[in-house]
């Protein structure tokens, strides 16, 4: 009974969103821009803004997270210091997301952003809430997760493998490249995809970091180098974000209910796809480890 009641609630939850939202979803809805007539409008720029922000976040969090994990597992200087570092990271992982939003505004925007503006003599380019700082905040928020999953994946590589590589004459860098990294890629990827899913579903820290419900144009400009022009995301502008869009639609706007459901459906599908990928990867990773251990 304790099991059936929640199960029923979740089934109703998903069915409700699916039944109400699915009829609206069409190629046009997913790609077109917002319009005054909802029947011809869509959430294309919203999805694009979400993906841009997530990609920018990945560009920040993946190198930093993986290298930090590599430092902790392979290049540590002092066990005591590392324990303290891991302790801080574990604590950071439990901090409510809205607190990271305060940190993003108070530190990234008002300290670093304003500082950069003063440094380059610019008029309010970095010192305002924008996609760059939203991505940086998300990256900082999800860094503990990427670090701990990567760290565990690195530590799971058997010591014999490392010693074999050293025995074959590999240096440390070569050992890491040919033994540690190939064996830990599924684990590291799990953490990264998990961070993507969390970033897509997250709303609270972005509320005051440059999200907008409606923007007339995408934060994109044409960068021209030697006559070749290609569109580049301008990360110092405001942006649209799917979860924020759903929040505003359901609390402050008058857009028809089916369109709100469709937005929620897209959001849930995106996060479910990411999470299913991590579950699949994790089970594969386990099998892989079991296989190598049995050998």
């Amino acid at each position, binding site marked *: 009974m*304790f099991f059936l009641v*929640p*199960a029923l609630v*979740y089934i109703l*939850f998903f069915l*409700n*969103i699916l039944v109400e939202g699915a009829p609206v979803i069409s190629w046009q809805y997913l790609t077109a821009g917002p319009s005054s007539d909802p029947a011809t409008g869509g959430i294309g720029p919203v999805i694009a803004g979400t993906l841009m922000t997530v990609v920018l976040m990945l560009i920040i969090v993946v190198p*930093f997270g993986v*290298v*930090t994990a590599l*430092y902790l597992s392979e*290049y540590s*200087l002092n066990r005591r210091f590392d324990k303290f*570092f891991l302790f801080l*990271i*574990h*604590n*950071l992982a*439990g*901090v*409510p*997301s*809205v*607190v990271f*939003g*305060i*940190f993003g*505004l108070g*530190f990234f925007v008002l300290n670093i952003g304003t500082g950069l503006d003063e440094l380059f003599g610019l008029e309010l380019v970095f010192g305002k809430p924008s996609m760059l700082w939203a991505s940086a905040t998300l990256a*900082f928020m999800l860094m*503990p997760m990427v670090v701990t999953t990567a760290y565990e994946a690195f530590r799971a590589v058997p010591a014999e493998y490392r010693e074999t*590589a050293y025995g*074959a*004459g590999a*240096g*440390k*860098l*070569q050992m890491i490249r040919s033994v540690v990294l*190939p064996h830990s890629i599924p684990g590291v990827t799990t953490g990264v995809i998990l961070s993507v*899913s*969390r970033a*897509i*579903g*997250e*709303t*609270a820290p972005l*509320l*005051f970091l440059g999200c907008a419900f409606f923007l007339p144009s995408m934060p994109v400009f044409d960068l021209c180098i030697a006559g070749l022009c290609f569109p580049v995301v301008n990360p110092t502008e405001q942006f649209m974000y799917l979860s924020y869009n*759903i*929040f505003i639609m*359901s*609390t402050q706007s008058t857009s028809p*209910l089916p369109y*709100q459901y469709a937005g*929620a459906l897209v*959001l*849930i599908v995106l996060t*479910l796809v990411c*999470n299913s990928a991590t*579950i699949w990867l994790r089970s594969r990773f386990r099998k892989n480890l079991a296989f190598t251990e049995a050998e």
Partner: protein
Amino acid sequence: MKRDNGSSFAVESENSVFRSKKKSFRISSDLFFAFLVRSAGLLTFLLVFLFFVLMIYQGLRVFEFISPSDLLFSETGGTRVYEWYPVSQDPRFSVVPLIVGTLLTAIPATLISTIFGVGTGVYISEFASPALRRSLKNLIDLFASLPTVAVGFIFLTVVATFFSDLFNPASRLNAALSALGLSLIIIPQIASLTGDALRAVPRETRLAAYSLGAGKWRTVKDVVLPAAGNGISAGIILGFGRAIGDTMIVLMISGNADNLVLDPFSSVRTMTATIAAELGEVSPGTAHFHALFFIGLLLFLMSIILNLIVRALVKRFTGGKKEARSV
């Protein structure tokens, strides 16, 4: 994967023929990489450390603007009022109604989630067949990562009406409704951690109970559950932490009325929702801005205290054998 290793070792053994030529290059690239990794690691450490320092420093700077007693209550005409009216003519910054509001949503949410979460965890780990267990566990992990804004949206459009027809609460959006919404994301978390804790109870413990003549249910109730008690408590406390820290659900469906109430069926405002609703409009450097930072500091300290309790519980549960895992 195996073949990859094989080929790279083959390359390596070819290299070793020319080792005298390449060795110096390899050592310098090794050193360079070590330097790079260490400096990036230290940079991350500095940033994390800075986060802790900055949160505490900026949070405590509130006392430059507001006296500690004003953060608790303000006196008007000899009576103490506990009100959070930061933008009125005579601003009042009592955080008491916000803390009460947070507890009024988080505690019922944790109670509901404990009943259903532990129940689900026990069912999955003890009574479901292995194949069913694996797929249910995956499903639960999926539910735990449900976007909170989607939960808030469904509760706002569907459940709120249903709820007010059923209970006829003082206001349509209220603390009890938020507690239900929160439990939707906390139940899977508690269920998953309960399952893990129960699975970690050694087989010998169960077998000993069976050999004493205890049945399946008796074994679970009197032997396995108490043995996993610390692990399950850790899961419940983590759930409580998530209930306190969640923003979107309470922002959307708690009603956000900023007065001190103790009735769970009335509209309340939580700490997280206050930050989320007001930080966007406040100008930096004002008393209001720092008061919001102070609320952030309170949340931050709460999460650290809960995390420390969880670590201690997990350490006792695993007997100090394993490093406490972050969840």
